[in-house]
Every structure is written in C-alpha cells, then in structure tokens.
C-alpha cells in the first residue's frame, strides 16, 4: 500500500467539514475522515508496508492528523449543537403573559380565620375550646346568667323562641353556664365560639345571626387587676400595640363589667370622622363573674372568682376583610369570596 498523502487527506477533511451544516452531515464527515475505514485509519493499518525506517515518522504524521481531525470534529459538533439548541429554544417560545392554569386554591371563611387567631392567642393562656347547643334552654341563656324574666337586659336580646319553650341562644355565654354546671376542678379556662341569634330587624349592621367568641377563667384569687391584665393581653395580641382604655359597662352576668376600647388607628384617640368623633372603638366586653352566677352552680363566690370576656367575631371579621356591609359575610356569593381571597371576582 502506498503511503497516504496526509496533508491532502487533511485538506479534503477540512473542505468537507466546512460544508457540514447539520449534525447528520457532520456525522458523514466523521465516518469519512475519522471512521475505521477512513484513509487515515487504513493508512495506520498499512504501516507494515512502509519501510521500517520510515514507519515511525509516517505513523506519527498519521496520528497527528487523526487527532487534529477529531479535535476539529468535536469543536464543530459543539458548535452545531449550540446552534441546534438555540434554534430549538427559539422554536419553543411560550408567552409568559398568558394566565396561569394551576388549580386555584379556595379559602377559609374570614370568620373562621378570625376565630382561629383568637383561639390561638387564648391557647397560650391555657384556654381550651368547648361547644354548647345553639337551641338552648332559657335557664342557661338567661336565668343562670343572672337575667331573670322581665329584666331590661332581655330587651337587648330579643329572643328567637322555638318549640317546647326552648330558644336560640342569644349569646355564647350560655356555654359558660353549662360549663359551670358540669365542672368543678379549678382552674377552668374555656373558650366558646359560634353562632348566636337575635330576633331583630336585619339592616346593614344588625343580623339575626352572628358570631361571638367568649372566654371564661375560674380560679381562686383572680382580681380586677387580673381581669385587666387578660384583656390588655388579648387586645395587644389581637389588635396590635394600640392604646386601650377600660370603661364601665353593664352585663347581668358580670360585676364589675368592663368594656375595652381601642384607640382609633386614624386619630389615636383624638376623635375623627372614622370613629364618629369618639376616638375609641369598643372591641371587648368583659367582667368579673357575678356572684349570683357562682351561687347558681354551687360555687362559693367567697372562695372562687372568675373572669369572663367576649368578642364580636362577626364585626372583627368584617373589619379585617374591609367590609362595610356585614351581611356579606353570610352570603354565599362566590364573587365576594374571590374578591376577599384573590382581589378580583
């Protein structure tokens, strides 16, 4: 076999390589010039026909050329792959402005979220949640809570009566009464949340059904200072570090009864249009458990004392959600829910 003309073979390779514009053509070039039957590989196999003295030089020349060809093919391949990738990516353009198509989450109700938040705060103080019936015996709704028949306090709670002399509870305080009836071990720390009912005309701010959350802490040695301490803790945890004030209120089942006002966030108590000039917004009703309530359930009011408080969670939820029409909380309008959750119907 004649000695291969290595420079000519390399020149032929480079001419073919220059014409290869896609991976298929490059593969043909590879097989033609670097494959096992390529002239250079055949040249290596024919070295035995080369005179022994020339053989090392010829072998070196062929190997150098073969190596150079492989390097140039690899480089060309990298270049072609980069071009191909670029072309593919270009072809795969997707409009990032199209709306997303993932399954949208729903949401829990604002009232549930508010209740959860309140209960989380109360759990830090050791409160546990208890529930009671909504169709209630008048004893637990009124009599046991120091509201005798014909007491003016019943005016504010015009009652839904149901058959057999029962009623729809007008406050969740009835759960406190049932708790005092069944528990004796101190301390008692319970929270009840749920629906309450008032038989009154419905308007923008009055509902026949609404939600409350109440707490009751019974123990030995609880004082007025403790009452204020718990209320201040609740106010801070639930409403932030805003000024508060305590004011006298009347609830038949507590004595003394206390209201907690939060300084208006807009005027900090100075009085503005948003707070109707009051400077304050009432957020909590509370008090020391009335001795008559203790006596009803066989507790000695000289031995134990109690702290009771209640929050209007409907109003809290409406404020949290920015609703001026509270009734919207109890309507099943999906548009309202989506606006609350996603900002758009």
């Amino acid at each position, binding site marked *: 076999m004649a000695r291969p003309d290595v420079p000519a073979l390399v020149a032929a390779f480079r001419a073919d390589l220059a014409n290869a514009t896609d991976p298929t053509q490059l593969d043909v070039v590879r097989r033609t010039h670097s494959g096992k039957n390529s002239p250079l590989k055949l040249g290596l196999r024919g070295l035995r026909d080369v005179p022994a003295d020339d053989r090392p030089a010829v072998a070196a020349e062929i190997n150098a050329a073969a190596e150079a060809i492989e390097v140039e093919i690899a480089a060309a391949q990298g270049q072609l792959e980069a071009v191909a990738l670029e072309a593919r990516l270009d072809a795969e353009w997707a409009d990032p402005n199209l709306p997303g198509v993932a*399954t949208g*989450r*729903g*949401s*829990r*109700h604002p009232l*549930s979220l508010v209740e959860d938040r309140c*209960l989380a705060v109360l*759990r830090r103080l*050791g409160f*546990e949640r208890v529930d009671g*019936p*909504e*169709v209630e*015996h008048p004893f*637990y709704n009124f009599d046991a809570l120091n509201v005798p028949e*014909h007491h*003016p306090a019943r*005016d504010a709670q015009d*009652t839904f*009566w*149901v*058959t*057999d002399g029962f009623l*729809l509870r007008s406050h969740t305080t009835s759960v406190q009464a049932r708790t005092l009836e069944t528990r004796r071990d101190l301390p008692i720390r319970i929270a009840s949340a749920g629906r309450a*009912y008032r*038989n009154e*005309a*419905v308007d923008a701010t009055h509902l*026949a059904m609404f939600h409350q959350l109440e707490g009751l*802490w019974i*123990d030995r040695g609880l004082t007025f*200072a*403790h009452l*204020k*301490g718990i209320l*201040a803790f609740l106010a801070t945890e639930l409403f932030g570090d805003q000024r508060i*004030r*305590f*004011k*006298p209120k*009347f609830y*038949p089942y507590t*004595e*003394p*009864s*206390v209201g907690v*006002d939060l300084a208006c966030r807009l005027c900090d108590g100075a009085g503005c249009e948003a707070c*109707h000039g009051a400077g*304050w917004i009432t957020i909590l009703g509370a008090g020391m458990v*009335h001795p008559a309530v203790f006596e009803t359930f066989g507790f000695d009011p000289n031995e134990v004392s109690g702290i009771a408080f209640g929050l209007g969670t409907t109003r809290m939820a409406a404020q949290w959600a920015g609703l001026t029409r509270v009734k919207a*909380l*109890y*309507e*099943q*309008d*999906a*548009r309202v*829910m*989506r606006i609350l959750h996603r900002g758009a119907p």
Partner: protein
Amino acid sequence: MKIHRAVLARFVDLPPEIVDSPRGLRDLLDDLGIEVKRLDGDVLTLELLANRGDHHAYLGIARELAARLDTPLLCPPLPPLRVVAPARFTVESSLCLSYSLTPLAGTGGAELPAGQRLALEAAGQSGNTAPVDATNLANLELGQPTHAFDADRIRGRVRVRASRPAEQAWLLFTPEPRTLPAGTLVIADDEKILAVAGVIGCEESKTTAETRQILLESATFDPVAVRLASRALGVHTDSAARFERGADPDAVLDGAARVADLLEATGAWARTGPTEFWAAPRPDPAPIHLSGDEVRLFLGLDLPDTQIARVLGALGFAVSPGFSVRVPARRRWDVTRPADLLEEIARIIGYNAGPVALPPVALGSQPTPGERRRDQVDDVLVGLGFYEVITDGFHARALSERLGLPTGHPLAVHVETTNALDRGYSLLKNSGVQQAIEAVATNVRARVLELKLFEWTRAFHPRDPAFDRLGATERPLLWAIATGGDRAATWAGRPRPADTSFVRGLLDELSAELSVPLAAGPIEADHRLAAVLHPHRRGAVRVGDRVIGAFGEIHPAVLASFKIKGVRPVYLEIDADPLLSADSRRPPFHEPPTWHPIERSLAFTLPARFESARVDQVIDLAAPRWLERRWISDRFEHDGLSTLTWTLRFANADNTRTVDEVNAAAERVIAAVVGELGPHGVKLR
C-alpha cells in the same frame, strides 16, 4: 339621652378644664360608664347602662361626676310641701309602691324661662304647655317622672288599680281608644282610665292650653309591671324607661315639689291644697358588709379606708364604722351585695387606675385531635379550590318546600321558631342541602357557574325527650357542593366536570390526609338525602360499616324547583362527629422498590349500568399476593357499553419476577373475570 353641658354644670362644680373642654367632659363621662355617643356643640348624646335608672337624669349623672371629682353635688332648691294622707285617691294594687297628687290652679299661657328650657330643648322636648314642660323638666333633672292631669276632666275618685278585662284606654297621641291587657296597672277615675301607670297618660285627661286646674301625679310603680305594660302596648316613653329600671321611692315628693316650684315660678300657677301622699310599707334592706382589705385586694390599689368611705358617701351610701353600708333607696334595685359596692368604688376611682397583671399561667393548651382533623379537612378542601361559607342556622319554610318532599320525610321535619320577625327564619336547618342548593341558585343568577363551596355547620332535629335540657338534637356536619369543572376553565382548555367521580376523588384525598378509610358505596333508599339526589348518580360515604354521609348529583327535579339551569351540582354531606373522631390508621412506611415493578393493562368491556366494583372485586380475588396495586386507568363509552382499563402493578422488589410469571398472573385474572362475569356480559376487550 341628650343633655346640655351648661345644664349639667348647674348640678355639679366642674373644673375649668372639664367645663371648657367638650373632649374633657366626654372622656370623663366615658370613664364613668356614661358613654358619650355623639357631641353636637354643647349637646351630648349619652348611651346609658341598662341597670342605671338613676343615670336617666342630670342629678344622677352629676352625682357620678361629683363623686369622681370630689366636689359638691348641687341640687335645685325644692320648696317644702305640705303632705297629708290621701283623700281623693285610693291605691288598690300592690304594684303601686307610692303615690301622690298635688292640686294646682293657674291661668294658663305661661311658659318656663329660657334658662329652664335649655334642658328640654337639648332633649327635644320643648314647646309644650307649662305644666307639661315642668313635668318633663323635673324628670330630666331629678329622674322622677310626674304627670299632670286636667283636674276638671276627672270624674270622682282617682284609683290606682289593675285594668279589667276588655277595658279600654285612649292613650295620648293615638287616634282612638284601645283595649288594654287585663291586669295592666292603670290610674282611673269613676268613668275612664286616666293613664297607664308609669307609661303614658290618656287623651281624655290630658292638659291643654285651656287647662286651669291640674292634679299633679308623682309616684313609683313596680318596674316589672311598667315594663310589661310598655311592651304589651308597644309604647316606650321616658317615664317607662325610668320606672322599668327602678325609680327612687324617696324622690316622689321631690318630683312633686320641683314641678310645683317650676310652675309657681312662672307666676301663672299656684298650689291650691296640700300634697296627698301614700307609700307602701318598705322594709329597710339589710346593710352590706365590706372590708377595706377586700377593696384593696380586689382593685390592687392601696386605698385608705377614708377614701373608700368618701367614695361611697358621695354616691349616697351611708357608711358606718366597720364598713356596714346602707344603700340609698334609689339604688336598692341594683346594689344588693359586696360585689356591687366593689363596682361602685372601682368606677369612681376609675377602671384605668391601678395595676394590670396577668394571672400565673403554667402551660398553654393545644388544639384537640378533632380540631386538628378539621384543619386537615379544610386544607384538602381549600387545596381543591373550595371556599368556606357560613349560612344562617335557619331558613324560610319555602326553601324546604322547594325540595318537594312528602310530609314526614326526614328533610321535611324541622325544629321551628315560634316568633320570628322575618319569615326567612321560620325553620332551623335539618341538613346543609337546602342552603347549598340555594347558594348555587344565587350564584347562577349572578352568572357564576363555576362554584365550590363548603361549610361546617349544624343541623337541628326534633328533641329527644330523654334530654330535658336540650331543645333539639344538634348534628354537626360538613357539606360541600360543586358545579362546573373540577378545576377552573382556562385558555388551555375546559376541565372535566365536577361530578360524582370528583367527589370520590375528594373522599380519596380526605382519606389520605386523615388516614381514615373513607369508602363510597351504594346508598340506601331511605337515607335522608337520597330523595334529593340523582337516583343513578349518588352514593353513601362509609367508615367501615358505618354510613356517615352521602354524595351525589342534585336531582334534576330539585334543580328545576330552584330554577337552576345550566349546571349539575354535586353535593356531599358528612356527619362531622364520626368524621372527626374516626380511628386514624396511617399505613406503615415501606421503602420504595429498587427495581421497577411490572405493569399490565387489562381492558374489559362492561354492559350498561354494570358496576365497576364487581369487576374490581373479582380482580382482587384472582390476583396473586404480589399484586402491589390496581387501578382504573382509562374508560371510554361506545355503543351503550363502557370499556374500562385496569392497570395491574406487580411487585418486583428483588428483580426476580419473570415475564412469564406476570403474564400467567394476568391470564388468571382475565380468566376469572370472564369466567365469573362473562355471563353478565363482561368481556375482555
């Protein structure tokens, strides 16, 4: 109640920073529990505590301020009355606690001086004849309601008595006489009723501009009697508001003296005789014992005994050494025990004075397992796109009737309200389904066709007489309803419908999240929800053998009754108690296999209405123990038949399973299915 700042200043010495600053007075009154709801110039609109009848007058409000500020209380001068036993009236009811009549005569035409009218104008009560203005003003000032009768229109003796059956009275400002409830406490003469005691006078005895002789009534009545009369008649007056909260038995003569003084000061009126007065015997209430230490411990304040005594004294309590406290008559209604006195002291010292301290707390508490599980359920539902809603506990009767169920059907039996002002609140819900369908109707009307809602609520069922203190059997439940697609339609295409299979998927997700085996199965025809669900697209939800709920497409006839078109809602209702308390069995953890399992797909054609569960059951029995999992991976309908593809995944944990073994197992499954169910029309496709 509306009061004028300048009038209030006549009853108590207010410091300049208070009297000159509306804000200062407002804050001070708020701090005393006399809440200022509105401030219009010098007029304050007050919201009074329900138990404080004495606050319904300038004097009562001033007493609080004087006690707080430690300044004197300034009472208007009261002329002495010549008091004699009754001659022209008789009290015939124990509901009258004291009664007086004072005769006056005048020329008419006079009016109270402008300074006196300020309080009336602030209260919106000005512009009447002098006798009416004087009685109104005395009530505003002292909190003692009085009433002036035209003496020339009274026939015979005045009697305080209970009304008789069917007896009529022509109440002031009404067009005609009306029948009073029998037993209403009234003031009457020999011919007619002159007034409903403590509530309102009557047209036939009222004073007018022509009146020249008046009989001035000042009295105290039983609070409950006044309250019942006021409510029964639907008449709410300042007088009734005052008496309902318990009036001051000691102020009867003061009220008469003040009115007489105001009228005589006009120069047009003068008393023509003594005041006839009667009072029921009144036992002196026992003193309340309180100790200074008790006060200091309760308030956490180091108050000297002298200060405690001063506060109580300023409020009219008589404090003997050793804190034996006698309650003034005006407070006998609401101060009866030491706790009441503690409140008095706390209020005057100020609720914002003194320490604020949290009681010691060892450890917080944790949510109960049921509460945690409910959160898990919420996570699943919200993750699938459901929105939580809260519906009313009651609904209109018409809503229940729209279900079209016969009398006696469980969904037609309700606990009912008996006095609802609104017909929308007639029936307590006995399921979530009525309001769920109504929610769909509401949203469809608003053109919202894609809907997923859920609620935790309670159903109410007639009471079990065994529980005498429970008015209903209350059943906590979870309901969910979905319409439209299983997910929102997007530009990328329409989703498959939210149907019973979607609910099955929801149950699977709940099962996985709760580790509770929720299974779906056939529903019994007598299930309370069966009648409102599509008869061939419904099922029961079970935990083990126990049915805890139902699901299915709402019956088309029910949808038509609710005028719902264009959607096919699917509904799920589960009893919450068993859901939240069912045993949780988390499956043991297995390392995923190193070697890939081997799968085979078998497609069987089923005749119409043939339940896939029957095929599944045969596969389960025929497959080897090393069948790791099976599931339906494809379904299509053709020629009234459906072809379902089961994918069988055979375990190959150690890579020793041969293709021949797997193929043989698959063949055995095929043979079993075709052998057992072939006679029913099931074929291998």
